[in-house]
């Protein structure tokens, strides 16, 4: 991140001077910082509402139910890990937390699963571990609350009208990720 950020700042100063837009760059630095705080404030309400609803789902056991519902699908994706009960439990908890958009819950659960999967092949990523990581790099969140909050803050009347498009795009992206894992695992042997 250090390289990227410094590079962005240096590139904009150089480019701004080259195109004669130096003063605009100077003004933009101030504006950008203020806009960041404004953005954060404008999405705060909806974000908090949703993390609140997620907590209710967790406490009422709805989140657990979802994770039990998922286990038949997950057994197919992780054939080598299917016999490891605890690994499978962590994986399904991780996937269902991702579905619900519980990012801060999903990561510890996913890391727990990764730790168990990595035990069998230290140093090298196994097929199951690659699959787990790829599933976590593809977004499978059912209700993209942060983006919807941003749209609502910009005066959108129906911030969730993008849901079908988001599901379509997510499904295709996850599908290709899983497919890529299955194909690459044949070619790219450990």
């Amino acid at each position, binding site marked *: *991140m250090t390289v*990227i950020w410094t590079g*962005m*700042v240096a*590139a*904009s100063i*150089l*480019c701004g001077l080259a195109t004669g837009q130096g003063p*605009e*760059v100077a*003004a*933009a*630095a101030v504006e*950008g*910082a203020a806009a*960041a*705080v404004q953005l954060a404030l404008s*999405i705060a309400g909806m*974000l*908090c*509402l*949703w993390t*609140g*609803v997620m907590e*209710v789902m967790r406490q009422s056991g*709805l989140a657990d139910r979802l994770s039990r519902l998922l286990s038949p699908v997950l057994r197919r994706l992780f054939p080598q890990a299917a016999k490891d009960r605890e690994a499978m439990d962590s994986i399904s908890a991780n996937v269902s937390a991702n579905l619900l958009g519980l990012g801060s819950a999903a990561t510890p659960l996913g890391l727990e699963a990764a730790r168990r*999967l990595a035990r069998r092949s*230290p*140093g*090298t*990523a196994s097929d199951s*571990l*690659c699959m*787990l*990581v*790829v599933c976590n*790099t*593809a*977004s499978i969140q059912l*209700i*993209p609350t942060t*983006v919807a909050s*941003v*749209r609502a803050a*910009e005066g*959108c009347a*129906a911030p*969730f009208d*993008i*849901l079908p*498009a*988001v599901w*379509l*795009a997510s499904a*295709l*992206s996850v599908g290709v*990720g899983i497919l*890529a894992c299955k194909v*690459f695992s044949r070619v790219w042997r*450990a």
Partner: protein
Amino acid sequence: MDLFFTMLVPFTIGAVAIYAAFRRVDVYSALVQGAGSGLETLTRIIPALVGLMTAVYMLRASGALELLARALSPLLDRLGLPSELLPLMLVRPISGSAALGVGAELISTYGPDSQLGRTAAVMLGSTETTFYTVAVYFGAVGITRTRYAVPAALCADLTGFLAAAWAVRVCFG
């Protein structure tokens, strides 16, 4: 159909609350407790947002993005991706809060209900911070040979971007 998706959110909230109340969960205090953790998330992302949106604003004002976008636009056009979304696609795999900043800018500039604004929102909603996730997972369990994880994840990201542009065209015409 539109009404269904608009009402989906209040229905979800209502259904969760009723189910939880029957399971004897203290719904209101759970809600408030969860909302508090949302605030924590927010305070964690604000510093990153300030840093990145400053850099993004500077980069935009300098004209550098236009130069890059102009160079890549023939390729993007062929793929059906508007070149205005290029900055978003470039930062998305690297930083979640930066992508949120860039995406929020696009949504505010072009309007949340414009084709571009919607595509930006769908891209944000259907992809993840790939490099961060890969680094956290493999770092945490001490894996150095990651084999095909990164290429496979990037295939998924690229598909997500193309699919976002396509899905918005299909769903909103």
